């Protein structure tokens, strides 16, 4: 089933130069649409929309998390005290 997910990626220094979003699109057949970003030498964040097969979106997010990118909902944590 096709789906859409909005997420925020946060990259630490060692991953800033990696083409992670390109690989996410290629390897999981996802359309990636960046809406807002701030990438610096020491870290970066990107908010983007992912379109594709829901299973592939999940697999893609698992892969991104596994290589060390923090994945969050676009509007911050939804759990509160």
């Amino acid at each position, binding site marked *: 089933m096709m789906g859409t997910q909005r997420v925020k990626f946060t990259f630490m220094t060692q991953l800033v130069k990696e083409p992670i979003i390109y690989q996410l699109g290629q390897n999981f057949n996802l359309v990636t649409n960046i809406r807002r970003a701030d990438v610096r030498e020491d870290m970066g964040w990107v908010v983007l929309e992912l379109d594709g097969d829901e299973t592939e979106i999940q697999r893609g997010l698992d892969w991104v998390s596994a290589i060390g990118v*923090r994945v*969050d909902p676009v*509007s911050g*944590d939804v759990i509160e005290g």
Partner: protein
Amino acid sequence: MAFVKGLMCRECGREYPAEALNVCDYCFGPLEVVYDYATISDVISRERISQGPLSIWRYQDLLPANGDDPVDIMAGYTPLIKARNLGKSLGLRNLYIKNDSVNPSFSFKDRVVSVAATKAVEFEFDTLACASTGNLACSVAAHAARAGIRAVVFIPWDLERGKVIGAAIYGPTMVSVEGTYDEVNRLCSEVADNYPWAFVNINMRPYYAEGSKTLGYEVAEQLGWRIPDHVVIPSASGAMFTKIWKGFNELACLGLLDGVDASSFGPDQNTVHHPAVTTKMHMAQAEGCAPIVTAWANGQPHVSPVRPNTIAKSLAIGNPADGIYAIRVLKESGGSAYAVPEADVVDGIKLLAETEGIFTETAGGVTVSALKNLADSGAIKPDELTVVYITGNGLKTQEAVEDVVNPLSIKPSMGAFEDVISQRIAVGGR
């Protein structure tokens, strides 16, 4: 009626109707309520406020939901207490405690949830929902009960029993999620995208967050329409911190503060700063989850998310939605931010209880310890008017202070009693 024009993206400025939305479709920035301050200034006055109910709804002209028939369990109008004993121990002669731990479900969350629940009913939602580590779940369940609608609350599987019972008693559908903090976060975000429910801090967030402004209004009103020189505030998402500041500035711009002339709100209502608002805003986070304090200390223009590891679970938000905006308030107000060592959290709880008779939860321990640091460092001068916000009740986090239970155990005889009491008095015990 609510004097709301609509919603506006805080990042790109795009406008939206006042609906159940929280994120800009274009840039995914957060949406904020836009008010019709021209009309508000025509109707609002100190007298009108003073004639309102003894709850947050006395400020209904400045809230984004219709206050004629709110979902109200009497949140707010909590005591502002002159803290003579705590002040004496810290060397502060003009210290007040805003005791929000005595709200109906025992935390400040009743303020924000009352607004969100009222808005949810206006939008004709039949379910009020949230993901919470405690206080929010209690408040959502209580307000849904009052509104006569369904509540669905998501909690981590390892939540303390006291908090689980404190929410369950109101009869919500309670979903205990077995997973890490991140997994719970992700699941709840997906549920919110797929179910037509009013998630108070997701699709209701623009309205919900505004409820915290009442913490600013009340303190000003209770001080005789003055604002403090300093406030000390616990922070998790950063939303309450920014909204108290907004509340002070709204009162100033509307000419409601003593000796302050009204002024324009300017082009961006959310960044307005009236020159008469000179309150220094001090933020308290626990060291085990201090992403905003870290960003402030390092001069970062962004907040790097962290994985929470603190006993102050009500402050455990690793990716704070309003962190960047809280940093702007720190800068504008000339305030400060302090990460309280985990070991000092319980000391703060005990200090407040033993000096002022107020039993706060771990977040309050963080705040009192931060206050102590500010006093010790001289950042707050002895005669400066200072308000410390205590936002949750200690009955919810009793596990943190179990070591205080140390009764004098005796046989039922007068002699046994006199023995132990004389020993206690001899060592200077109370």
